[in-house]
Each structure stands twice: as C-alpha cells, then as structure tokens.
C-alpha cells in the first residue's frame, strides 16, 4: 500500500473540505478501499476518516419512510428494529453479504461505493482494464468471464456491481443524499450507479469530493411479502452469481405493487420498472412471472462463460417472486 496522509475531521463540513484536496479519498469501514489500496487499484494519497462523523442514525422521516445515515454499519442497519419491521427486504439483503466481521465494519455509504469484483479489475498487474486505465481495453471480454455481466454491458466493460444491499435499495426506490462543496443533492438510486458505456472508469454519478451523508427510503408497502434470493457458488461468504430482490403488495389475490431488482448481472443493480409493471394488476401466476422475467432480462447478452446466468436469472426471479408471494 502506498504511503498516505491521514485526517480525522469532526464535522461534515470539515470532511468535505479535506475531501476536496487532490488525491483525497474518504475512508469509512475500509473494507473495500483498503482492500483496493493493498492491491494498488485505488491510489489515494490522502485519507479522510469519516467514521466519527455524526451520520450513524436511523430515523423516521416526518413525510414517511426512513433516513439512514451513511455511517450506519451494515450489521446495525440489518438489525435495526425499524428496518426489520418495515424493510425486511433490506435486512435480508444485508445479511446475505460478506461476513459478520465485514458487516460490522462496512457502512451504508461504503457499500454503495464498493467496486466491482471483476478478476481483471481487481488485479492491478493486468494491463487491459478500462475501468482502472481508460483506453487500455477489457481483458474480461474474451477472458474468464463466468462471473461477469449479462445486461447493460458494453465492449468497454462487462463488470458487475457486487453489492447485495444496493439491489434491495434499488428495489425499494431509495434516494442517495450527498454533500459536496456545492451543497447537498439527492440522487435517485436508479441513477446513482452508471452503466459502463464508454466511460466505465466512473462507477457512480458522485462528483469528486462529494460525500454520501444518507440514504432515504420512502414508506414501503412491501414489509409483509419480500424476499432477497442470493444464488452463489458456495453457501456463504461469496458474491452473487445472480441475486433477486423481490417484494409484493398483494390485494385480493392480485399484485397491487411490486419491486424487482437483480444483482450479479450488471454494472449496476438491475431494476427494470417495466418488469415490475408487468406484475401489477395481475395474479401472481407463472405467466405473470414469466412476463416480468422477460422484461427484466430483455437485451441480455451472454459472454463466453456466463450464458447460464440468463436461465439462472429467469428461474431465480420466479423463485424469489413465489417466495415473496408466499407460495414457494
């Protein structure tokens, strides 16, 4: 790891001032940043420790819904009574990720910003990675790409976003609240993570120096029927091959509202509103589910080693919806 300066601000304003300096990076849990610094994938020269900023509360919003401070640890968030009660999808997604130790360290803000686990990105000795080195090529495109994207990818980058929490936040229509030298703004979860396009070096819409301060969730009708299904190569402590956040609001045997997002398949949590709309107003039967799958996986482009993900995703969507609906 390179040598770094270290600062520990005591206010958000001070943190943002430090964060605006060249070569600065915010460090919270460190579970992704320090990992990438050891691998010389992330190369900050200044670390701004935001762990002690007063951003660790989970509060009810007057307009309904909740506000989650960016510094809330993943484990604390999953166990928070409000989250368990009202957003169990989020709790289940959180505890599906990483390990208990990492969940104790990782923050909401850091989880949003975690970078891909693409083999070629993660290994800084691989020259061809457009995400690390714009213009150098994409070694995964013709390489070992079993774990890579089937949706929304480009010839510049086929990486996936590895987070579980983000898939649930996408399904739950979260907003990300950020603060920078220009002030505060909100970025809808649907927009927060980018498609790779021809600029895969930018994972998110965050501007340099901006600090995530909170995530806000609208009130959710999904508490009674939700399920986060994570399909992976071993029973725990592994990233998703495919994951599904599914939640339903049912009335009189038909779907009144639905949330559906996929993980492990794209550069960002893959929520297709049209797939949710395919469920609304219908009974939760095989035909309805198939229609939703169809839309969710529209445009899927498998790579040499990951064609199985298309069928797996289809089946995982069905399983997750059935489970959420109470049928499976």
């Amino acid at each position, binding site marked *: 790891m390179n040598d770094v300066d270290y600062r520990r601000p005591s206010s958000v304003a001070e943190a943002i001032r430090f964060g605006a300096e060249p070569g600065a990076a915010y460090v919270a849990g460190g579970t992704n940043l320090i990992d990438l610094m050891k691998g010389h994938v992330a190369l900050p020269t200044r670390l701004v420790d935001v762990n002690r900023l007063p951003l660790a509360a989970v509060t009810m919003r007057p307009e309904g819904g909740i506000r989650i401070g960016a510094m809330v640890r993943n484990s604390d968030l999953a166990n928070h009574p409000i989250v368990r009660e009202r957003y169990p999808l989020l709790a289940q997604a959180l505890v599906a990720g*990483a390990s208990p*130790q*990492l969940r104790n*360290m990782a923050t909401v803000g850091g989880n949003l910003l975690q970078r891909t686990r693409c083999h070629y990105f993660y290994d800084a000795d691989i020259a061809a990675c457009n995400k690390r080195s714009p213009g150098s090529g994409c070694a995964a495109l013709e390489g070992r790409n079993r774990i890579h994207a089937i949706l929304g990818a480009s010839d510049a980058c086929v990486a996936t976003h590895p987070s579980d929490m983000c898939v649930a936040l996408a399904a739950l229509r979260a907003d990300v609240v950020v603060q920078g030298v220009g002030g505060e703004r909100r970025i809808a979860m649907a927009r927060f993570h980018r498609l790779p396009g021809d600029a895969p070096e930018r994972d998110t819409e965050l501007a340099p120096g901006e600090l995530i301060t909170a995530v806000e969730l609208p009130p959710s009708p999904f508490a009674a029927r*939700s399920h986060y299904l994570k399909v992976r190569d071993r029973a725990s402590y592994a990233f998703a091959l495919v994951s599904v956040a599914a939640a339903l609001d049912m009335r009189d045997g038909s779907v009144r509202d639905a949330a559906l997002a996929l993980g492990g398949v794209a550069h960002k949590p893959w929520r297709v509103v049209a797939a949710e709309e395919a469920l609304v107003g219908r009974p939760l039967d095989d035909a309805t589910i198939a229609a939703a799958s169809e839309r969710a996986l529209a445009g899927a482009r498998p790579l040499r080693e990951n064609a199985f993900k298309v069928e797996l995703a289809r089946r995982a969507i069905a399983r997750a919806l059935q489970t959420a609906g109470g049928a499976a």
Partner: protein
Amino acid sequence: MSSDVVDHSGLSRRHFLQAAGAAAAVVPNGVPAQPAMRDALPLGAPSAAKTTTERVVRLRVNGADRELTIEPRVTLLDALREVLALTGTKKGCDRGQCGACTVLVDGRRINACLTLAVMHEGSEITTIEGLGTPDALHPMQAAFLSRDAFQCGYCTPGQICSAVALVGELKAQALSAATFEAAPAGAVPRTIAISDAEIRERMSGNVCRCGAYVNIVAAVRAVAEGKA
C-alpha cells in the same frame, strides 16, 4: 530479437495481451542477464529520506495502553503482529477474505487486516491473547480445546474471537441469513433459536482449510447454550 516486447514499466501504453496467432518466439535457455549500469543499485545503499508520515498512535489493546509510532497505512493487523509483537492474531490473506485476523473492537468482531491502526484510537481492542492464557482459558478456548475444534491452529484465534462475539450477537438477537431461511417466507424473523444452521452461517466468515468445521460448530454451540 523478440516478436513482442511486453512492457510493464508503466512507461508506455502498449497492450500486453498477445494477438492470437502471433508466432511463438523460440526462447533460448536462460542466460545470466548482464547488469545494466543504469539499473543496478548498490545493495544496501539506503534511499534518500523523505518526509515521514509516521505519527504517534495510541491504542488500547487487551486492557493496556500502547503507544506506537507508525505510518497511517499500517493496518491494525500489522500493528498487532509486527509492532506490538502480538502474533496471536493471524494474517491469512490480508484482504478480508478469510477471517484469520478477526479481533474484537469495542466488543464487535472485525477483520483487522482491512482497517488502519490509526482509525482505532480510543477503542477497546481485544485479541486472542486478551481472552485467556494457557493456564486460564476463556470458556470458548476451553470448548475449542475439548472438542478438538482446530488442527493446525492457524485460523483458531480468529475463530475463537469470532465465536465469542457470535454468542453476544445471538443474545442481542442479531439477524443472519440463516434466520431468514428458517422463517416463513416474507415474514420478519421474531426470535432467533440457536441451531447448527445459525452457527454455521455466523461462523462462515472464518475459513478453516483443515476443515474443523464440525467440531467448531459443536464448541460454539456448547458455549452459546451454556453447556460448555
């Protein structure tokens, strides 16, 4: 002589992946390379000194206040092992992927390899050495011993620290993926029963290549149920 020169100097942007079909160069038996005058460095000559980022970091480890003069980039793990000579905490992968470095910080289990020592000033850090000694074992250590919950012993300190925290988490009714699996679909798990499935999931952040899992689960369960 070569057909393709691969440059990892970072000085050029030449793409290093070979095009398919490039003729294989016949590589002669390795010959001793001649030192290039520009590249050779007299061995033992220290580099020019730079400004140091070293700073005094105060850690409280196993109840004792320790003062270290270290760079900010020193991880908590390396601070423990290399600076404080507390080698009970192990480095298995250094990238948060095995759990061998698990320690307790303010009673919570974390991986010491992915956090910096400087980030934990003011915290209570407990390592395996602080849990018990050979003559005064912590109940979890005793349970591991009697149930043979280890073989080579390298992952063991991490397992034990993790397990101690696990018992507290269960008491606090913290959730795991196993809780959701055991609960009816879509429902919010209300209570958490101690089960082998719960313990397996909650200990999955501690890899054991010797495969002592069956006995680890038995030891942890015994302590969690107060039957150690």
